């Protein structure tokens, strides 16, 4: 059976594409699938740092695509999670070194060896975006509940539809307290504007910063709400349709809950 190529994109930068790619990749590998995550942000690579594999890079995706090395040489195996491989980006080249055709041919090779190939798309809608989208079967849109992020995601969705890809949506960095006070767009607002299939909702989580800086996969952090949400997203991607989408709720302390029950305070 041939593997699936999924592109993770957003249009806007800094919304959590790289974190989402690393986390979903790790979660899919924990489900027992052969997973390759490919950093397409050539010249500004980050995925290796987020996954904690930066000191093991020998060959990059540019070398692999241009036939300077074999795929097995470029793919770095994660030691903590089985079946998870990273193909890092080159830091010294720029995005013009690859073409969409080259990526389509490269992903054809990758499909033979892996069940899931996750492409971490760079921000913007230029060459890097075209290279990442050309070989993709499916797309995941990462969007934060901000007007600017929604606008860019909307544009990217239009571009993906033009390439006959129906993307799925992840709303990232939801702060339930702010949504409750009306200071932040709710996920319903975002879904209403973008009107695509919702894949998951992720709350704002400080564990993400810890995970990014230490290189520890987010999904392995037991107390991380975001990590749990990514694991559920991976299960949904893996075909388990019956997992409900959990809406991030305001977390109230034990005594406040008791107070609410008996009608004291808020």
């Amino acid at each position, binding site marked *: 059976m041939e593997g699936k190529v999924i592109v993770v994109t957003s249009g806007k930068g800094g919304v959590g594409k790289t974190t989402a790619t690393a986390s979903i990749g790790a979660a899919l590998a924990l489900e027992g699938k052969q997973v390759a995550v490919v950093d397409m942000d050539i010249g500004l690579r980050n995925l290796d740092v987020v996954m904690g594999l930066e000191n093991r890079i020998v060959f990059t995706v540019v070398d692999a695509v241009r036939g300077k090395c074999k795929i097995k040489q470029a793919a770095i195996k994660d030691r903590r999670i089985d079946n998870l491989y990273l193909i890092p980006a080159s830091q010294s080249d720029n995005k013009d070194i690859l073409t969409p055709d080259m990526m389509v041919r490269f992903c054809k090779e990758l499909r033979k060896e892996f069940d899931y190939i996750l492409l971490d798309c760079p921000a913007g809608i230029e060459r890097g975006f075209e290279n990442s989208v050309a070989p993709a079967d499916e797309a995941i849109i990462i969007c934060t509940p901000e*007007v600017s992020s*929604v*606008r*860019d995601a*909307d*544009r990217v*969705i*239009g*571009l993906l*539809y033009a390439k006959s890809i129906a993307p799925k949506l992840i709303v990232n960095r939801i702060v339930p307290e702010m949504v409750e006070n009306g200071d932040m767009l709710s996920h319903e607002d975002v879904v209403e*504007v973008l*009107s695509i299939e919702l894949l998951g909702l992720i709350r704002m989580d400080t564990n993400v910063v810890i995970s990014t800086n230490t290189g520890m996969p987010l999904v392995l952090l037991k107390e991380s709400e975001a990590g749990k949400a990514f694991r559920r997203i991976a299960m949904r991607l893996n075909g388990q349709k019956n997992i409900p989408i959990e809406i991030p709720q305001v977390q109230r302390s034990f005594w406040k809950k008791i107070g609410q029950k008996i009608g004291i305070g808020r």
Partner: protein
Amino acid sequence: MDNILKEKSQIRLKGVKDGFWVTLDPTLPKEFIENELTRLFNQLEHLAFNSKVIIDAGNIENNENILEAIGIFLKDKFKVGSVSAHHKEHGGTEDFSRKPDMATLRRQHYNDATVIAGRIRSGQNITAKKHLIILGDVNPGSVIVAGGDILIMGNLGGTALAGQPGNQESIIIAIGFKPIQIQIGGIIAAGLPSSSQHSIEYAHVENGVIVVEDYVKANPFGRLTWPVVR
């Protein structure tokens, strides 16, 4: 020859229902008018007797004296019944002619309205030569342009340009009216106050300014007496 033709055209006689209609230029010399009238009425012979003559001397003011003189002249010489001046109707701009009823009209009106179903996303541009109807939402960041009206059966969140170029009669209607910017025939309305009301609103030009009103309350076309093609 040319001269005669020209003079002939200056005084004309026409038979109407029960009399004669004389069109003349009162600025002509009196002798010339009398000579011409004599020539014309001689041709009528007995028909001129006791007939009703209406003189149309155009819109030139202070021509009563000339008309009176002509009246006396005609009554004396040809024994016409009465001579009266033709007065133009005043303020007759209202058109009382029968209008066709659209409901029973056989003729069909073909109109170049573009109907588009779906969501217009950020970065997408839609252009229509005449009216544009969108069955769906228009997201922020998109631009829709029409030569005539724009009707949106959904939320308007982008930029809408109606009546391009220069048709200020055009309107923009949306069920959810939250545009970034609207233009009607070259008039720009940017930074519209965002209304929270959940009603159908429409934008139109009033005294050179774009006005946004509740469509149902304003009912701009309810006052038209007859259905008209836009």
